[in-house]
């Protein structure tokens, strides 16, 4: 095909263009023509189509996500908010921390290893782009049923991919989730979170300012990876895309990324960039238009200068390529030599591809011919916005009206069987098979990782300042009530930070849903966003960023609404954190918080094939008092251990506590079945020295948190109301599940 230039677009205005195949709707195509005052060139069409895809433009979610800004609490801790590559928060002592989650769901279904690996690579570059050194990763994952044949294909590949990439980058994996449900069978969820740290003065932004400054592309060469991946893979269900349309898979090179990180940090340390942007979804289309749009608008790029892995790529393909491990920087001419030198030291390919101009157009040429001439804001930030129809789906009232009939354990045998059944359930079983494939030690700053409630890393070796991060989603509750589900996930993540003694500070999220074109799914989404925004306002936590993944559905069946919420907290001295379990006998165990009849949406109900009933109603005021109690109690050194209750209720929490150090416990519970199985939110088990019981009582009374003594630590069994389960038997049940399933 002949090169389609701006001149030929003018002289040859009426040719028919494949906008529909590129995922653009007729009215979107019409708008592009209106913006340009002519038909787009094929390169412009490529750019608009990827940048206006759901994945890049947030066209269906924008109107809802606005609430995170509108309802936000004003806080000085937020140094960079939503809109940049990742939000940045002040954690004290001059340090700033950035963290964000992204999804790589569809690619991971197609090619589990590479999909997951490049998911990790992408989020790490987002964090690096802010000027931060990446210090840890986490990976909330969702799969189809544990025993489904396709799960056996997908899960090992995804775990190996997350590990393969993260381990090679030298980033400790400090947490994540592994959850199974039928609805994820054709739609596994691979969410990846990265945390980075920097000094306040080191924050970098994606903006191209200063006419005459150079546009520099560095990192891997550009190949035909994932061309159209952004628009096709992320924006349409597999149903509508035959294999012919399936784009090339992106393959990651973690070694190149590791070198890119070190090279970039050296460049940042010498203050050599004005602005910087990673190349992720939509590749150069995204990086050039976002950088230009973030600055004054003018930029000239000579596309033929881009170093290629495959010499046959067309300009359209180069613009859309999603080759990994690339960055784009804006550099003052006086600093370019030093920039090139550092790249040479690290053996990183680097090319000046253009310059910032004082105009307001993004102009791209191909061997001298103008092939793109657009106002960059219209590409990057002024894409279409949809207020999609939404309607509460019929299932909601129907399932909410269902009465849960599952039998709760009463006799000693039933109690024992229930504890063992929950301990072995894939959703609750020991995840070492997974986490043993991840390096948790590298960098030497990991304080907590699996199986702790949250991941914790030290950020200053002298002052012992640290941060903790937890991610949570309870899709069962979100299915029953998406508004409460999002709030409950927020509360759970915050609680998981606080059990260690860290104070929750900021929120990120990854919203995984079905098709936004389904009004029922759109309602779930809107309710989840409203719940999260209201919850954050109530808890005084800013949302610093996040990601939306739509079209996670197979045919007409969507995944359970899965808003994954990440909360970051600060702890002044990591040496004083409260661990999740006890390492000695003779301690008293207390349950903090109240247990209600919250069997609906519980793991126990799920194991018995029931998923109806009503989700609990979040009481965030009480959650905040509980958090206060945990943080204050930690400061006052009241706790030997503290562990959150969530899926699997008290049974799961006790199982994890006794197995951690092989110290048993004996507990006596009122209303034992419900107390053991219910998943009422806002609860924590703490272990304390008996001498501290009065201090704990006083604190609980002050915070108005119900506290119940449930037993003592010691022995080599878990004994619940006389039902005795040897730790060896419990350990076997808990640890056997994954190796049995996945080898």
């Amino acid at each position: 095909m002949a090169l389609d230039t701006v001149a030929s677009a003018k002289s040859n205005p009426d040719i028919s263009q494949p906008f529909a195949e590129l995922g653009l709707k007729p009215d979107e195509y019409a708008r592009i023509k209106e913006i340009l005052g002519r038909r787009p060139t094929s390169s412009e069409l490529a750019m608009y189509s990827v940048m206006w895809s759901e994945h890049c433009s947030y066209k269906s979610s924008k109107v809802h996500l606005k609430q995170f800004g509108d309802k936000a609490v004003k806080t000085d801790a937020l140094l960079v908010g939503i809109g940049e590559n990742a939000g940045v928060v002040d954690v004290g002592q001059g340090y700033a921390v950035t963290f964000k989650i992204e999804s790589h769901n569809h690619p991971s279904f197609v090619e589990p290893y590479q999909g997951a690996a490049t998911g990790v690579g992408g989020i790490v570059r987002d964090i690096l782009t802010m000027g931060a050194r990446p210090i840890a990763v986490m990976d909330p994952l969702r799969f189809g049923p544990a025993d489904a044949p396709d799960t056996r294909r997908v899960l090992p590949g995804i775990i190996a991919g997350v590990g393969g990439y993260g381990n090679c980058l030298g980033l400790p994996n400090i947490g994540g989730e592994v959850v199974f449900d039928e609805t994820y069978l054709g739609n596994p969820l691979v969410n990846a979170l990265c945390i980075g740290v920097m000094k306040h003065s080191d924050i970098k932004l994606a903006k191209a300012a200063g006419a005459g400054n150079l546009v520099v592309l560095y990192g891997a060469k550009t190949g035909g990876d994932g061309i159209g991946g952004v628009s096709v893979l992320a924006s349409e269900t597999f149903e509508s895309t035959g294999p012919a349309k399936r784009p090339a898979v992106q393959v990651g090179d973690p070694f190149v990324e590791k070198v890119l990180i070190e090279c970039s940090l050296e460049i940042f340390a010498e203050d050599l960039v004005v602005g910087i942007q990673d190349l992720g979804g939509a590749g150069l289309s995204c990086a050039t238009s976002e950088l230009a749009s973030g600055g004054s608008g003018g930029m000239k790029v000579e596309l033929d200068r881009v170093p290629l892995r495959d010499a046959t790529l067309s300009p359209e393909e180069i613009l859309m390529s999603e080759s990994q491990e690339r960055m784009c920087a804006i550099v003052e001419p006086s600093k370019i030599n030093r920039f090139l030198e550092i790249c040479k030291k690290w053996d990183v390919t680097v090319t000046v591809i253009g310059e910032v101009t004082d105009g307001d157009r993004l102009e791209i040429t191909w061997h001298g011919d103008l092939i793109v001439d657009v106002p960059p804001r219209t590409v990057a930030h002024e894409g279409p916005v949809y207020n999609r129809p939404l309607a509460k789906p019929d299932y909601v009232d129907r399932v909410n009206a269902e009465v849960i009939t599952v039998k709760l354990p009463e006799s000693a045998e039933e109690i024992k069987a229930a504890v063992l059944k929950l301990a072995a359930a894939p959703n609750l079983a020991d995840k070492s098979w997974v986490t043993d494939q991840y390096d948790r030690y590298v960098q030497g700053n990991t304080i907590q990782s699996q199986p702790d409630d949250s991941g914790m890393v030290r950020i200053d070796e002298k002052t012992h300042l640290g941060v903790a991060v937890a991610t949570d989603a309870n899709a069962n509750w979100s299915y029953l009530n998406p508004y409460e589900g999002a709030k409950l996930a927020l509360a759970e993540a915050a609680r998981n930070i606080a059990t260690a003694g860290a104070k929750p500070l900021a929120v990120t999220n990854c919203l995984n849903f079905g098709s936004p074109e389904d009004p029922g799914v759109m309602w779930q989404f809107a309710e989840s966003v409203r719940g999260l925004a209201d919850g954050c306002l109530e808890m005084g936590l800013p949302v610093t960023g996040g990601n939306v993944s739509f079209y996670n559905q197979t045919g007409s069946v969507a995944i359970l609404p899965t808003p994954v919420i990440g909360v970051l907290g600060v702890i002044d001295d990591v040496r004083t954190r409260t661990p999740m379990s006890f390492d000695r006998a003779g301690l008293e165990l207390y349950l903090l918080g109240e247990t209600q009849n919250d069997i609906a949406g519980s793991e126990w109900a799920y194991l018995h094939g029931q998923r109806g009933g009503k989700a609990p109603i979040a009481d965030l005021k009480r959650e905040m008092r509980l958090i206060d109690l945990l943080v204050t109690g930690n400061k006052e050194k009241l706790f030997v251990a503290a562990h959150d209750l969530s899926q699997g209720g008290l049974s799961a929490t006790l199982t994890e506590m006794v197995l951690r150090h092989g110290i048993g416990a004996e507990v006596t519970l009122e209303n034992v079945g419900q107390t053991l199985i219910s998943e009422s939110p806002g609860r924590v088990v703490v272990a304390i020295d008996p001498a501290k019981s009065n201090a704990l009582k006083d604190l609980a009374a002050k915070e108005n948190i119900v506290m119940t003594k449930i037993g003592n630590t010691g022995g080599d069994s878990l004994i619940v109301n006389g039902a005795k389960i040897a730790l060896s038997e419990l350990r076997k049940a808990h640890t056997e599940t994954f190796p049995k399933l996945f080898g």
Partner: protein
Amino acid sequence: MGKIVVEVMLKPEILDPQGTAVSAALPRLGFNFAKSVRQGKRFEIEVEGEPTPAQLAEVEKAAEKLLANPVIETYVVKAEK
């Protein structure tokens, strides 16, 4: 005893980090013959007796299903000797 060989290579358009690393290392050691290097896998499968066409067809199926990932790789099945 016969032998069937399956050679699996990444598709040409797919990034090959290992091949790239080898290609970069060779000139550092003074070897300048390579214009490019691609690294793949080689499976040597021992079968009972001389490989039969039926066996080769089976191996072909196994290559498609297990030994190669057709999303990113191509493969060749050969009887050896």
